[in-house]
């Protein structure tokens, strides 16, 4: 058995006992990168020397009896949205090509303190805008389960690298589903924590009222352990919640007996939902019922407005956040512009891809004089109603179950020229961001064509522990998360 078949926590135990070394674990990852990443293309950058040096340090700590924790020495990957001192950070954009971050973001610091070697930086849709990783300025990532299909996005490189066992776990970010949707399409576990649970300091911003960092792993215990590592209050992010995270592993195996789980009819009645996805998710809800949960029909009546709300709020915030890419302080600068305004305009035209331009334009329009009230303010008000729907539902249920994505992985190229078709991928994931809730995707089945399907669990704010416990109760009774994609070395 390759060491990469182990989960993060299993590897951590073997590192602790000395049965395996961190250097061996990193080498096993690099060997898989060498064999498979030519096909999958999950990595934008592999830091061989850095990862091996961090592994050697982890092995020394163990020998000295100074292990940093259960994940010390366990290799991970990072979506290329996290600032890493001394390594490139591109956010998947040509405008940041060659940018080397002058400091580590807070979650990167926390990972370094936990001792996890960083194998490399993972591909993504440019500035996290997209659902397929096809909007990367560099190349699309392919789904390890079927190389003709997309791993989802925007954290598609992270999902594919974890699914292909090229890293033991990864961090992604989720603004409208960018952790959960690729997790579902790639057959792994992904969690978007409650807004404010994890620091955004040193994470390239997309839509600041929605962005949240989260773990992407092979199973739920790893997800809990990685969340534990990064769920730390950070004074550098004013929206980071000043509270101590609970022990996410303590009650993980507690099961779902007696829990009330809501089935929102608006999610299961979507006309465009793939029948195999529907059947698989419905079977998963019945499995949780058998395990002792009570299934309760609930209504989230404003669900159908979430897509429109999101595609006004997120682009508006993005248009403001992305104003910083002006060719002055870092990143690309267009040559030959005679004056400052021309330099801004040409730099941004050359540096941004089409989807980013589309969203910057849409957001600028929605915020502009004469349209602000009709578009941006209106969307903020509907956001209140969407949030209220969940508050009402959580009066009667402990969590809500839904599909993560309406379809399994789709073919690369199938949706990329039709923005509205692409946006529909996020229809089940983005209400959670608008409401600021924690949301988990766990593998719950496969289609006849062997493409993974994800079950989504949405919880009350700050209730990650319960969301993880529900996901774990399902996972423990099934083997979907143990299956390995059928990759062959080229």
């Amino acid at each position, binding site marked *: 058995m390759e060491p990469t078949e182990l989960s993060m926590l299993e590897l951590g135990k073997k590192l602790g006992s000395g049965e395996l070394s961190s250097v061996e674990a990193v080498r096993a990852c690099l060997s898989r990168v060498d064999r498979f990443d030519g096909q999958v293309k999950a990595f934008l950058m592999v830091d061989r020397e850095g990862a091996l040096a961090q592994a050697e340090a982890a092995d020394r700590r163990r020998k000295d009896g100074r292990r940093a924790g259960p994940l010390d020495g366990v290799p991970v990957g990072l979506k290329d949205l996290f600032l890493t001192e001394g390594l490139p950070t591109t956010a998947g954009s040509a405008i940041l090509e060659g940018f*080397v971050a*002058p*400091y580590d973001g807070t979650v990167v610091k926390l990972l370094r303190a936990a001792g996890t070697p960083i194998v490399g930086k993972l591909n993504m849709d440019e500035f996290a805008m997209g659902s397929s990783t096809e909007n990367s300025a560099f190349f699309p990532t392919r789904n390890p389960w079927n190389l003709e299909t997309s791993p989802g996005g925007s954290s598609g490189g992270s999902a594919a690298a974890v699914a292909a066992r090229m890293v033991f776990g990864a961090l992604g970010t989720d603004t409208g589903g960018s952790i959960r949707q690729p997790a579902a399409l790639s057959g792994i576990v992904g969690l978007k924590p409650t807004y*404010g649970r994890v620091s955004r300091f040193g994470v390239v911003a997309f839509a600041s*009222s*929605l962005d949240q960092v989260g773990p992407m792993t092979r199973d739920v215990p790893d997800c809990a352990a990685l969340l534990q590592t990064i769920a730390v209050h950070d*004074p550098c992010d*004013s*929206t980071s*919640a*000043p509270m101590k995270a609970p022990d996410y592993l303590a009650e993980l195996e507690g099961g779902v007996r007696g829990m009330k789980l809501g089935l929102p009819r608006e999610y299961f009645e979507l006309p465009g939902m793939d029948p195999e996805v529907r059947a698989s998710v419905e079977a998963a809800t019945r499995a949780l019922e058998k395990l002792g949960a009570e299934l309760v029909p609930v209504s989230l009546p*404003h669900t*159908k*407005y979430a*897509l*429109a709300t999101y*595609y*006004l709020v997120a682009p508006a915030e993005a248009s403001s956040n992305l*104003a910083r890419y002006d*060719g*002055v*302080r*870092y*990143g690309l*600068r267009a040559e030959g*512009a*005679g*004056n*400052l*305004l*021309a*330099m*801004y*305009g040409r730099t*941004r*035209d050359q540096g941004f891809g*089409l989807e980013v*331009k*589309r969203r*910057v*334009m*849409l957001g*600028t*329009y929605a915020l*502009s004089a004469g349209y602000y009230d009709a*578009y941006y303010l*209106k*969307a*903020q*008000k*509907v*956001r*209140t*109603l969407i*949030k209220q729907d969940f508050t009402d539902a959580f009066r009667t249920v402990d969590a809500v179950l839904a599909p993560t994505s309406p379809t399994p992985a789709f073919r690369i190229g199938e949706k990329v020229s039709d*923005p*509205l078709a692409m946006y529909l991928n996020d229809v089940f994931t983005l209400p959670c961001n*608008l*409401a*600021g809730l924690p949301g988990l995707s766990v593998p719950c089945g496969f289609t006849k064509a062997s493409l993974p399907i994800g079950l989504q669990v949405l919880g009350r704010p700050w209730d990650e522990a319960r969301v993880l416990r529900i996901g774990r109760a399902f996972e423990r009774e099934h083997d979907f998360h143990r299956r390995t994609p059928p990759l062959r070395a080229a």
Partner: protein
Amino acid sequence: MSLTLEEVRHVAGLARLSLSSEEEALMRTQLSAILDAVAELSAVDTSAVEPTSHAAGEVAPWRADEVRPSFPPEKALGNAPSTVGTSFAVPRIIE
């Protein structure tokens, strides 16, 4: 709702994007379609609803106003396309 080419150019100007004429035409079609799709929000009665600008809902935290070391200039300038001394250099603004 159909955007005019003038509106597309106006918004591109606000967004500091020098779009090519092909991009202007594409944006006009695609943004018009997206604006049509999001127009469904006007059907929602929000007359008595407060806007939500943020999911957190917490008040902004305070911290002590203490002197702390700032980011060193050489690091801050490390990714700059053009510098003069300890400043970012840009094309001339005032003739």
